[in-house]
């Protein structure tokens, strides 16, 4: 069990690291997905320990993750059409 929790924690840290260091919107998406999957692993492990029906949580999270990814990708397409890049740091027209 510790093994799987460890995998979850490592995945989460990788995701967090990607989000905090990378500046590409697509990489953010990758990082966020990794973090969600880390939570999923935790959920499944703890469900095995306590109550197997709570494994459903992971299923719902998967659906939500895809919905979010779709929104972000759609936004990326629009943004790319306008700016020709998807670097978050260079999106600074709003600050002045």
């Amino acid at each position, binding site marked *: 069990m510790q093994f799987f929790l460890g995998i979850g924690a490592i995945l989460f840290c990788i995701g967090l690291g990607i989000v905090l260091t990378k500046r590409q919107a697509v990489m953010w998406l990758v990082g966020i997905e990794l973090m969600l999957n880390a939570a999923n692993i935790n959920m499944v492990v703890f469900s095995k320990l306590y109550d197997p029906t709570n494994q459903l949580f992971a299923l719902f999270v998967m659906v939500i993750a*895809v919905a979010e990814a779709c929104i972000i990708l759609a936004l990326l397409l629009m943004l790319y059409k306008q700016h020709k890049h998807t670097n978050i740091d260079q999106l600074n027209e709003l600050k002045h």
Partner: protein
Amino acid sequence: MQHGALSSFSMILLFIIGSALFLLGGLFAAYLLAPRKPNHEKLSTYECGEQPVGHAWGQFNFRFYTLALIFILFEIETVLLFPWAIVFGQKELIEATQGRWAWFAFIEALVFIGLLLAGLLYAWRRGFLDWARPRPKVPSVHSPVPHALYENVNRRYSPPSKQKA
């Protein structure tokens, strides 16, 4: 077979091995028996009858993305039907709830699928499922010179062979 000798997951493993063997056996038999007369057409990649163009790793037209996004959304949402399918229509559960469970679960699934269907219809009506064809732009020129004059000039200075045709 003794009860519980094979857990349900090892059944699945058996299926996987069986299907792999079946597939490999077919291929191997074809390898042994089939005549080999390769030509260019036969060696090219099979793409549902289309002429294969370019490389699989090339950039795709981004019109694919809209369709792909809609597809993956609907596909993933059907995942939620799997846990429903496990508990739906189980005799013990229906008996334990005096038959109400069956109707309840059935109506729930109808609502779920109905909402998904409404979403799909919306995407369809708004034209997100249409393959957006590039509209050819017909250049229009507003010139003070009348069109007939151009045609006269063309006729006079074009080579005689074309005039006949």
